């Protein structure tokens, strides 16, 4: 099939045998699953048998682009990477940008599925003519940026590369993969997908190609893109100036910025971590992904202190929360170094930071002794933060425990530690407050990925006048938001340009964009239905792995400890409230009271094949 918007090929590689196969897919398949996240969900549901260890060779990593990739819609250079996560044991997808996504599609590929385990460290080169498996013996152990550059030296500068770092090689459960292009980094951060690659002895994936994507109605697409240009510019202005770090002061002003492992969500002075400070004192230049006018990336240089002269990327809002406020490390320069370590070693900053914060609170409670670790375990200790990150990547000493993630650590440390755990389904929670934003309470509890802010979105909840505290309407909000992100991750479209360029929920603009590219006469209802199909399929995958209502829950502090001060003082989500929202959520979804998609719903969505499993 070479319908507009698609290259028409799924490429499969078995690293155990070296076998590469290519298969087409029907237009109907594309119309039901769109691409990206949707393709990955279907491929993984079909190809994985339940209950395998995520490090088992039979796990499969999928890279998938979508119909909007390599078109003119702003922020279209995104790819979805997915596998069974070593952190959650469930379906997990993560996206990244830069240039790689476009080049993967230009290699003639809509999806790349990698299974098996190579006999020795390797990397893949995916081109229009096929896939080569090459030795990575001399690349093994390299930090991500060096690995990417080394492969570009070997394969040519027109090749785009994403690589795992030492953390992925050592199977750290939240290891990440990093791509670099023209000063811009592009990281698939969460879920430990790089560790799955590490278990396969797959150091990197390189892509090259020149096959463009056909668009059914280019002038209609151009008209749509032009009509959204001004709103996109206005809505992304703060991102353009400061990057995501601009959120630090406002979210703190809302009393919703977690600190000291969630002991508080408001701090008197957060300027040391703020976008304003980075802009004034650290900013070097803006960086951008291919085909995006926003340029939310920022290259920075540390102006003073022990890391003076260090040049790297600005830490994102999430990293400033996880590594910074959660550990009370209020130092912009130290956080650039922490970011550099995480990016180069290949570690998810959110899971890393929140896991360290969990460790610190356990130490504070006497559940773990400093003497046992050789590292001071105190809040606000920059040297300890940096040391713990390095030890985690090497699985050295206490790092071996940290590398397992906070949920597994809690199992080892005993029931007293469970009150300090800040994760759902094993995924540590991000910055958007589970207590202050009731939509995130139900959102985190029900998201496929667990504690993820890219299943249910916080963005609409920050709008002026939105009732953040009340549970009223939040289950419906979560359902709609999850369809939105599933489709967004299938197109595959950058969340920022999507939310600010096309809309905060699925609407006519999204339908028009897909129609203009594919030629399908697609309505908003149909698009919403695709989102619903993908979410239900992911849930079926998870249910098959054992997910039930008991896992759709929240951390102890969210259920039992109100925010103590600040503008969101008193906010939390007591169990009865969560239960009531969960009942409503399941009802809206057509799921049983155990959170299992009902047969009627599965039939309605064309997912009856999930019933035979």
């Amino acid at each position, binding site marked *: 099939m070479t319908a507009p918007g698609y290259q028409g090929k799924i490429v499969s590689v078995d690293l155990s045998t070296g076998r590469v196969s290519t298969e087409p897919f029907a237009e109907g398949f594309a119309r039901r699953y769109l691409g990206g996240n949707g393709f990955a969900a279907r491929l993984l549901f079909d190809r994985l048998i339940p209950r395998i260890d995520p490090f088992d060779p039979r796990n499969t990593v999928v890279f998938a682009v979508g119909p909007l990739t390599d078109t003119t819609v702003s922020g279209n250079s995104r790819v979805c990477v997915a596998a069974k996560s070593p952190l959650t044991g469930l379906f997990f997808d993560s996206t990244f940008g830069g240039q790689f996504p476009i080049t993967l599609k230009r290699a003639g590929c809509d999806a790349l599925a990698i299974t098996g385990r190579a006999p020795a460290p390797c990397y893949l080169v995916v081109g229009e003519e096929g896939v080569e498996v090459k030795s990575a013996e001399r690349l093994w152990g390299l930090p991500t940026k060096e690995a990417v550059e080394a492969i570009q030296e070997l394969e040519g500068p027109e090749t785009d590369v994403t690589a795992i770092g030492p953390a992925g090689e050592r199977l750290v459960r939240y290891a990440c993969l990093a791509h670099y292009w023209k000063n811009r980094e592009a990281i698939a951060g969460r879920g430990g997908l790089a560790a799955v690659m590490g278990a396969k002895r797959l150091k990197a994936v390189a892509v090259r190609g020149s096959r463009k994507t056909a668009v059914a109605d280019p002038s209609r697409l151009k008209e749509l893109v032009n009509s959204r240009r001004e709103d996109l510019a206005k809505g992304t202005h703060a*991102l353009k100036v400061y990057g995501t770090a*601009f959120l630090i002061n406002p979210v703190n002003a809302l009393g919703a910025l977690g600190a000291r492992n969630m002991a508080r969500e408001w701090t008197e002075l957060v300027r040391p971590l703020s976008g304003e400070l980075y802009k004034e004192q650290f900013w070097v230049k803006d960086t951008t992904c291919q085909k995006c006018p926003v340029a939310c990336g920022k290259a920075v240089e540390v102006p003073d202190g022990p890391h003076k002269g260090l040049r790297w990327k600005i830490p994102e809002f999430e990293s400033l929360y996880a590594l910074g406020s959660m550990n009370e490390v209020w130092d912009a320069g130290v956080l650039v170094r922490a970011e550099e370590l995480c990016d180069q070693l290949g570690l998810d900053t959110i899971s890393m930071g929140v896991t360290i914060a969990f460790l610190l609170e356990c130490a504070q409670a006497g559940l773990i002794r400093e003497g046992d670790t050789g590292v001071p375990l105190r809040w606000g200790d920059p040297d300890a933060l940096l040391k713990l990150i390095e030890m985690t990547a090497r699985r050295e000493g206490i790092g071996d425990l940290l590398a397992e993630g906070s949920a597994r650590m809690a199992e080892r440390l005993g029931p007293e530690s469970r009150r300090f755990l800040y994760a759902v389904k094993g995924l540590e929670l991000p910055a958007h407050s589970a207590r202050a934003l009731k939509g995130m309470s139900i959102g985190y509890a029900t998201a496929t990925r667990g504690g993820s802010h890219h299943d249910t979105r916080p963005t609409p909840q920050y709008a002026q006048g939105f009732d953040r505290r009340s549970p009223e309407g939040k289950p419906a909000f979560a359902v709609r938001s999850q369809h939105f992100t599933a489709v967004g991750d299938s197109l595959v479209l950058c969340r920022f340009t999507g939310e600010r360029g096309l809309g905060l929920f699925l609407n006519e603009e999204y339908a028009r964009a897909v129609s203009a590219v594919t030629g399908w006469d697609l309505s908003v209802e149909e698009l919403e239905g695709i989102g619903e199909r993908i979410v239900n399929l992911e849930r079926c995958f998870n249910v098959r792995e054992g997910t039930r209502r008991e896992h759709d829950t929240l951390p102890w502090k969210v259920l039992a400890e109100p925010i103590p001060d600040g503008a969101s003082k008193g906010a939390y989500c007591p169990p009865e409230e969560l239960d009531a929202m969960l009942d409503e959520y399941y009802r809206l979804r057509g799921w049983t009271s155990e959170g299992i998609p009902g047969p009627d719903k599965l039939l309605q969505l064309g997912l009856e094949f999930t019933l035979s499993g």
Partner: protein
Amino acid sequence: MIAARGESVRIQVQLFATLSRYLPGASATHGATIDVPDGSTIRDVLDRLGIPDEVPVITLLNGRDAGHEETLKESDTLTMFPPLAGGA
């Protein structure tokens, strides 16, 4: 401009991100203390700070969402920032 104290209220203003340029004077906390005529609305304060009508502003009064028609009282804190579009 200093009005007689009985005719004005003293408030704290905080301006973040792209709005920080409208802050009267430099400040590490992005805040300033200003006196405004008694009965001033949030919109009046935005005008006084020179923030154009077409610039979108989220306004919090003492930490909670407040519409631009709300009036200010002595010791109120008015926090202003651009609409949030986070996600990283």
